[in-house]
């Protein structure tokens, strides 16, 4: 689709199975959040994320999150929260969520767009 060249369907990505396993490992402590995300139920805060991270946007300085590997999203969010990953604004936002909530958001946005 035009305007979203960097967004490949999750299942079609090389190493998708490994990423899924890693994502599953990240979810191990939060089965409820993981199940909710699998069911397509939006975890707390998800609707606010799309104020900046809109699906099907042209490439900007704000990176896409929809359809990205859950493990990558979760690692980024955890890194923003802990301060290990440099950020302009995401560090301040990630600190408003628990690690479990961030993992649930990662799982939710990782799902292929419907």
């Amino acid at each position, binding site marked *: 689709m035009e305007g979203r060249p960097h967004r490949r369907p999750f299942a079609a990505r090389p190493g998708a199975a490994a990423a899924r396993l890693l994502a599953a490992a990240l979810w191990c402590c939060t089965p409820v959040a993981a199940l909710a995300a699998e069911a397509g139920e*939006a975890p*707390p*805060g998800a*609707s*606010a*994320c*799309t*104020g*900046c*991270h*809109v699906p099907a*946007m*042209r490439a*900007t*300085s*704000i990176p896409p999150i929809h359809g990205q590997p859950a493990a990558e999203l979760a690692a980024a969010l955890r890194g923003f929260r802990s301060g290990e990953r440099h950020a*302009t*604004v995401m560090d*301040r*936002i990630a*600190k*408003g*969520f628990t690690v479990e*909530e961030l993992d649930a958001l990662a799982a939710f946005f990782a799902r292929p767009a419907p």
Partner: protein
Amino acid sequence: MRRRGFLRGAASAPAAALLGTPAIAQAAPRVVVVGGGFAGATCARRLVAAGIATTLVEPAASYLACPFSNLVVAGLRDLEDQRFGFDGLRAAGVAVATQSATVVDPLARRVALSDGIVLAYDRLVLAPGIEVRLDALPGYDAAATEAMPHAWRAGPQTSLLRAQLEAMEDGGVVAMSIPANPYRCPPGPYERASLVAHYLSTRKPRSRLLLLDAKDGFSKQRLFERAWSELYPGIVEWVPLSRGGRVIEVQARERVLVTEFERHRVDVANVIPPQRAAPVAREAGVADRSGWCPVDPASFESRLQPGIHVIGDAAVMGAMPKSAFAANAQAKACADAIGALLAGRAPAEPRLINTCYSLVAPGTGISVAGVYRPAANGLLAEIPGSGGTSPLDAPPEDRRLEASHAEAWFAAIAAETYG
């Protein structure tokens, strides 16, 4: 009074026809959203996406957005770049009524429009934005807005302020009158000051910018003050409340701003007066004596009128500022809450985010962010440890990146809301 007005509105033929088909429990639920800004348009879209029949009531054929309009004031952007139409909403299935909501009857759950049509609703969402008060600052009336533009709703006022700045001779004095809290876009006056100072420093470098403030502190203050001293030395002077900054009267014809201590005769005056929720909120009985609308922080349902939800700048949102980002986030949470209520479920506790970017110069950005949830006091509170402003010592590349993010955010919210 309210009821009589309603009946008068209902007496016309199309209204009478609609009155014959009141909302009944078995019928598909209907929601009416009043206001086509970032709150109302976002909410209407999300309601329709959830399968709920929704009418958006907005008198203007297109919406002129406030974020980025300070660039228009400073001559760096075209006002037309602020304009968004409603065709995207129509295509998404929202019924758009290009009308004003004139009368709201919360008991009958009906709203009358300026063309006499009466819409029945199961839930009403009011997202009417602000009214710029022309009764709060002595001398600042409708006529005064032509001599001393507020430019606090994007449109002709924005162009007028820009034209006045462009017509001013080098060496002139520009003054801004900045109100006490709460008002639309807390960092907005200071972003405007920065971009006006940029205009003056590059085009009219002998000029000065005087900020007369009814407060002793403001959003992102240290970041703005650092930027002014580094980028625009000798141009910006901020006069806080405690040093006589509060403007208590204006004399529009003479371009005079009167404070408790001084009369300032200036060349261009930008008066941002006190504000309150737009008139339809008072009509509907959802505004309290403060002029703003108290709401439940989980459902955004009015504390004063059941069945009516208020979102965006008109509502009292506790720690959450009156911003487009906040309005868009509240709108989505409100639509989800309405979906739950219509299905007979309790709304989930919302987690809301705000991010406000300000440009201190073209290509140089700063931000304030926050994450919010309902607190025991019945208001939205910031989650401890979250949020805050850009670091004071951030490297220049981060300031550039934040300016890029500001632009990307505006494109994103416009796409989500109107695209």
